[in-house]
């Protein structure tokens, strides 16, 4: 990267349109422009209305501690494909306010709430700026660099007390409460009154339509979750019901918030790799893929040919395993108790066997390295993949198709339920099968090809109704396309090395930023990594497709029946590890 980066034409247009408001990013390795906070809404409206940048992919923040500055970063795309536009807004640390984009992109809703939660940046104009992942009343904003958790040891790993004078001890022994807690000074637990979700209930009450008909029916507030068999994990939907009709619904998340990003900023770049496995635990290979290509962008390296093929092979196998499980569990939510999911799990088990043999673990593969993969596939495993792809899986997928697609009950329960139009899907930043089921043929493997996808033949599957049934059809079709990709991979995979250079455990990444994205089974999985030249990332953010899908959940569920809310959640197919991170 030279000192004077060549700007894409769109930036020049933008600067001509808003001459005083825009500055070019001058730090080496950083991209895009800096927009003046006061002009943000105008600039974004211009981009959205005039230039077709209708898809807000990612919104996050960076703490520039010890400088008195917080950055908010926006990554926009066109839903018709094309180049990224990225820009930043700077704000002061002690009183950070940035205008909200809620009115332009509804997809900004949860992302802005997350930034408020983690960094304490206020978004002026956001109608519901509550904490997203933590609870109201939590002390501090954890992703600020000067905020320290109770089990804080050092700023960066590796910790110094592990070697050469390491003593095996638990860190809780150093905490006065023998637990992972800390309290502000003068906190008195005896008189403390917890907020206890009052803000959620108040908000729900405020959203109930006043005039709901002549018949007076008692309204009921129901919490589905966090422990509920149909929420696929610790997800909670707080809903107001009138009879069976959903009047208002709010997803409440954060029950699996495992502080992925805070830990990720302390880890070295390589140490983050096994952590990414645990994001979307149904498709760890895809998570590895996204993180690897993002850091490779920063490092400027390319994996060798064979490694690329192995990567694609594993990612597509993951997609098959994940989609078939999604279909199985959608049927579970419909009440087809367990039979379809057992059929799906059977095939998933066999795919996991391959992962276990190649990568060492069924779910937490940790298979990718920067510039390659960790080990080559053996002849035996390759034959297994071949047998699965050419013989077994097509047969089983046909079975699943015959079993479910024409089934009248499935059709009745799914058609016309949870409809999201194309415009809404784009505006809510939905991605993956949810977006494509709404009639937007947007697949990152096609519009922004990474790895070797530009050389492989496959179709982008999409449907037009945007309901639950279409999401199911898209998933089924995508499994078939994945099989098609895998057949080509098996045929074309070359011999050769699987790693560029030697794998280093301490990778020194040049300063800069990178936003890499892959088409994971659940949609656009993006990683935003900022390096300041050290062994650890300065900022590590995951743009998780599941979180974006939950943004539109409210829209899909309100007005429908409560039983359909469960179906819709099943069709959106969230994985809580990724929603909450």
């Amino acid at each position, binding site marked *: 990267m030279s000192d004077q980066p060549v700007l894409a034409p769109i930036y020049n247009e933008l600067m001509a349109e808003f001459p005083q408001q825009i500055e070019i990013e001058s730090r080496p390795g950083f991209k895009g422009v800096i927009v003046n906070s006061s002009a943000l809404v105008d600039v974004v409206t211009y981009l959205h209305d005039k230039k077709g940048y209708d898809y807000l992919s990612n919104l996050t923040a960076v703490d520039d501690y010890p400088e008195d500055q917080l950055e908010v970063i926006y990554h926009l795309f066109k839903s018709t494909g094309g180049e990224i536009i990225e820009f930043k807004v700077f704000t002061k640390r002690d009183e950070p306010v940035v205008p909200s984009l809620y009115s332009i992109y509804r997809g900004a809703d949860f992302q802005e709430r997350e930034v408020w939660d983690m960094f304490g940046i206020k978004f002026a104009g956001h109608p519901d700026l509550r904490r997203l992942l933590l609870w109201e009343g939590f002390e501090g904003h954890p992703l600020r660099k000067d905020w320290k958790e109770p089990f804080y040891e050092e700023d960066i790993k590796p910790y110094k007390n592990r070697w050469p004078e390491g003593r095996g001890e638990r860190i809780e022994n150093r905490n006065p409460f023998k637990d992972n807690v800390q309290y502000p000074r003068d906190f008195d637990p005896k008189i403390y009154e917890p907020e206890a979700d009052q803000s959620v209930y108040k908000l729900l009450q405020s959203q109930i339509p006043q005039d709901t008909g002549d018949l007076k029916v008692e309204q009921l507030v129901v919490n589905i979750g966090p422990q509920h068999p149909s929420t696929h994990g610790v997800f909670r939907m707080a809903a107001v019901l009138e009879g069976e009709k959903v009047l208002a619904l709010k997803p409440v998340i954060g029950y699996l918030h495992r*502080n992925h990003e805070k830990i990720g900023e302390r880890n070295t770049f390589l140490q983050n790799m096994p952590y990414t496995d645990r994001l979307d635990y149904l498709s760890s290979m895809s998570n590895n893929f996204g993180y690897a290509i993002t850091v490779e962008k920063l490092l400027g390296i390319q994996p060798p040919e064979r490694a690329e093929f192995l990567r694609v092979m594993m990612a597509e196998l993951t997609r098959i395993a994940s989609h078939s499980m999604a279909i199985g569990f959608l049927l579970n939510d419909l009440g087809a108790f367990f039979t379809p999911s057992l059929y799906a799990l059977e095939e998933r088990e066999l795919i996991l066997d391959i992962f276990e043999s190649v990568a060492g673990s069924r779910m937490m593969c940790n298979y990718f390295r920067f510039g390659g993969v960790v080990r080559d596939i053996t002849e035996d495993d390759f034959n297994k993949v071949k047998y699965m792809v050419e013989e077994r899986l097509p047969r089983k997928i046909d079975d699943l198709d015959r079993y479910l697609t024409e089934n009248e009950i499935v059709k009745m329960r799914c058609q016309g339920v949870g409809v999201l139009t194309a415009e809404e899907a784009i505006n809510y930043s939905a991605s993956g099968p949810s977006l494509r089921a709404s009639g937007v043929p947007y697949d990152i493997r096609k519009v922004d090809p990474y790895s070797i996808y530009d050389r492989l033949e496959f179709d982008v599957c999409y449907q037009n109704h945007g309901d639950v049934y279409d999401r199911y059809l898209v998933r089924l079709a995508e499994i078939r396309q994945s099989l098609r990709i895998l057949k080509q991979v098996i045929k074309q995979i070359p011999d050769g090395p699987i790693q560029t250079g030697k794998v280093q455990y301490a990778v020194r990444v040049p300063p800069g930023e990178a936003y890499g994205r892959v088409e994971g089974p659940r949609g656009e999985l993006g990683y935003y990594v900022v390096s300041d030249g050290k062994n650890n990332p300065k900022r590590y953010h995951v743009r998780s497709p599941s979180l974006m899908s939950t943004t539109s959940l409210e829209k899909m569920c309100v007005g429908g029946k409560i039983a359909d809310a469960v179906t819709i959640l099943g069709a959106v197919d969230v994985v809580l590890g990724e929603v909450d991170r």
Partner: protein
Amino acid sequence: MEANQDINRPGIEIPAELRQQVTITTLERIYNWGRSNSMWPMMFGLACCAIEMICTAASRYDFSRFGMEVMRPSPRQADVMIVAGTVTKKMLPPIVRLYNQMSVPKYVIAMGSCASGGGPFKEGYNVVPGIDTYIPVDVYIAGCPPTPQGLLNGLITLQNKVKNESMKEAGWYSKGKEVEVPIPVLGPDVFDPRKMDLIYEETHKPLEIPAEDAGTEGEPQ
């Protein structure tokens, strides 16, 4: 240990001529045998480990072979709570509430590193370093995540524990032995009502060296 698991060997000699027709056991053994072979787990997953738990329930590993096929989503009907995954502070009050709602005899399995002791996410600010800080745990299964076979091994370990229990010592037939676990409260950080005094004491301690502690929320190092 081993001898106690055979239900029909109570240590009483059966006359040789009756050996093929009569078997003797103690009430305790047949009771425990029955209990250990009908442990109903709660359908309750938290994170990655839950997926492995589902796989254990599915056709390949199939824990219904051990009498566990009925996974109950309701805590009232469940015997075993498999804490499968990372316990976060936000999720802690519901978990403790679920535990309180389970009827005795109840057992808890901490599946995986996270539930046992915080796991890889232990250093995080929203993670509970082991569910045993709040509720009693019977069996710990290490591994991240434990494979389905690892979980089955843990369940068998739990069955062995159940088989060795004694009705006389067990708490669930005597009054007043079962104490409800107080539900943690989400304040500035989660707090256990049992530790209120300690918390008050720590947060109202006079600052020893104020210059050094400034900005770290008064947390003694």
